[in-house]
């Protein structure tokens, strides 16, 4: 369970957060939400697909780390073995929320919350959140920037997937993976860019997608499929060694 509390320098002055990447901290995730603003980095490490939010049924882009539930093939004994770790993974154990505030232009003020039940949160190990004088640490300053980017990314994602749906650019797919040892894995519940449709788009549509900043993201998602083979190889290696 989670127990999010609004971060407060008086109440949380001695809090620390462990940033190591390990299974016991919940890093054994199969995939995690990603955003077009980080697609350039994501596509160099992970395949980008789309899946549905269980609450709303809406699509969101996601970076794939494994081929079955709770499997992260990038997680090793020495941490997360990749040059880039997605923003939505790095945000834990924090969350951005909003409080009503008449002073703000949009009537609300972003607030940072921390999950007190998260195993990363403690008072002895990891990064401090506040300096002795009560000002935020560099770590916390980075986290606040990250949370703001994620918030903007959420809004951008909504428009992005809407453009994909409106142009009929998504399709469901089932990936059948045969490992070196002959065992089979089936990946379902994911969606991908419908390439034939993409190549049929007329000039006006392409221009509109480009102006919205979606065209590059679409092609990066397509290019990211190249990361699927290394992922399957990782899986084969794991299967062989176990």
């Amino acid at each position, binding site marked *: 369970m989670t127990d999010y509390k609004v971060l407060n320098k008086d109440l949380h002055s001695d809090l620390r957060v462990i940033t190591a990447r390990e299974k016991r901290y919940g890093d054994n995730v199969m995939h995690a939400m990603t955003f077009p603003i980080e697609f350039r980095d994501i596509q160099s490490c992970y395949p980008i697909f789309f899946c*549905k*939010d*269980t*609450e*709303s*049924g*809406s*699509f969101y882009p996601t970076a794939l780390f494994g081929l079955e539930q709770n499997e992260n093939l990038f997680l090793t004994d020495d941490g997360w073995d990749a040059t880039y770790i997605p923003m939505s993974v790095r945000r834990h154990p924090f969350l951005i929320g909003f409080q009503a505030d008449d002073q703000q232009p949009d009537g609300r003020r972003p607030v940072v919350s921390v999950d007190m039940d998260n195993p990363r949160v403690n008072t002895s190990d990891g990064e401090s959140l506040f300096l002795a004088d009560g000002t935020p640490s560099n770590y916390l300053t980075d986290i606040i920037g990250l949370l703001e980017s994620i918030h903007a990314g959420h809004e951008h994602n909504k428009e992005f997937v809407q453009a994909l*749906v409106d142009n009929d650019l*998504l*399709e*469901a797919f089932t990936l059948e993976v045969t490992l070196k040892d002959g065992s089979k894995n089936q990946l379902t519940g994911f*969606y991908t860019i419908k390439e034939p449709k993409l190549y049929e788009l007329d000039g006006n549509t392409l221009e509109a997608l480009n102006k919205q900043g979606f065209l590059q993201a679409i092609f990066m998602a397509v290019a990211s499929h190249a990361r699927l083979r290394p992922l399957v190889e990782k899986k084969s290696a794991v299967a062989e060694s176990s």
Partner: protein
Amino acid sequence: MMSNQSFNRIVIVGGGTAGWLTAGLLAAEHCAPSGKRSLPSMEIILIESPDISTIGVGEGTWPSMRSTLKKIGISETEFITACDASFKQGTLFQNWKNGFDDSYTHPFTVPRGYAETNLAMQWQPFRDKVSFAEAVSAQNRLMFENLAPKQISTPEYAFNVNYGYHLNAAKFAQLLTEHCTKKLGVTHLMANVVAVSSKDNGDIASLVTDAQGDVHGDLFIDCSGTRALLLGGHFDIPFCSKKQFLFNDSALASQVAYRHGSDPIASSTISCAQPHGWVWDIGLPSRRGVGHVYSSAHATDDQVADSLHSYIAATAGEEIAKSTSFRKVSFNPGHRAKFWHKNCVAIGMSAGFIEPLEASALVLVELSAAMIAEQFPTNRKVMDAVAKRFNDKFLYRWSKIIEFLKLHYVLSQRSDSDYWRDNVDTNTIPSGLTDLLELWRWQSPWHRDTTHVDEMFPSASYQYVLYGMGFVTQAHTTYRKSDTEFSRHAEALFSENAKQTQQLVSTMPSNRELIDKIHIHGLQSI
């Protein structure tokens, strides 16, 4: 217009659900914008009387409505939000068996493994421990618990378990009107038909209207409701009453408010037997549609109003019951002697109407329009052959509907009124049904009990009603290889079904929860 000229104009009379569903299904198959076809398009004209309000038959559909809507090109999200629609997974019968708080379901999903295995006889030894529907279909429990047949992440028209809809018929006709005129190119004329002008061969040449002049056509579809303006009024095709089998000829209808906005929406049509008929209870997101069907020969309007009031008071509270008003509807149960005559075909209540048990009204419209769309005569010469085929098929369908509806009554052990006692009188039972009942005492219905590929009620429906009502089929007294095979599969099928039931009950949202989410987020098309 000469009969060998191009055959390309369909005129539909009537602007109710039947007229617009027919227009939609025909236009979806026969019309397209000029840029998207290499051959001329059919022209479809619908004449609606500005003076006659539509009855709005049926607020319950079959699963077939999903493919109908898909074919017409309406998105499920649009349909659900525009028509105040909810999900229906079958019928939940209450008090039909003996009137002492008994209940059973007729779900839309066929029994598990039905294609290869007949589980009915395998279930019978356990009949006192578990109901038939519970043992063979995961849907049974979802129906009792008002759960949805799918999740928000399930694409439009796809499902976890099979489903149809409950809907607001007036809003549905409105949505279809918009869609047919704006997207499918159907011409909508507001006028009263005042006369019919004929050709030498007796065909209809044109309809004379008060506001739109003469409307010519090649095929005329009569969707004018029980008046049957063309088939009855003009051609005088006789009406065949079926009151000798199914006594109900009246109904009191009402709209019942929910007590709270969060009250559950039933995910089945509830049919609750009463001393003089039965009550339908259809849950829409914004209100319930509740009514009492009865036989005017067996009960007075006041007696029925009392029963209906009690039902509403028991399910919604005395306060809501007091403020609910009833509207009386009378009908003559039966159908025309034929439906397609010359160049005129009747669809909807103009073809016939029988009490709403098992909601056969809208599905007959869908089946009729789909058959005309598929078998549309290319010219006048072949029309008679198509008409004969159509008449044969739909006369058969009506006879099967009458048998299947009557089945519900003859299996009842109720004897609390003349209504129920008369219903089991052998003189009121169609001979075809009498024969089948005798047969089913010795063998359980299965695939061979239905003879047509597009049968209205599959043999599974007979199983659900028979065994739900407590009917007993005798076990075989000599060896059958199939019995041993079925019994070998049965254990696995029963346990798979129990497992699936458990899994669905724990993952499906409530009917209301899903409808609310669809109103906010919509369903994805993939």
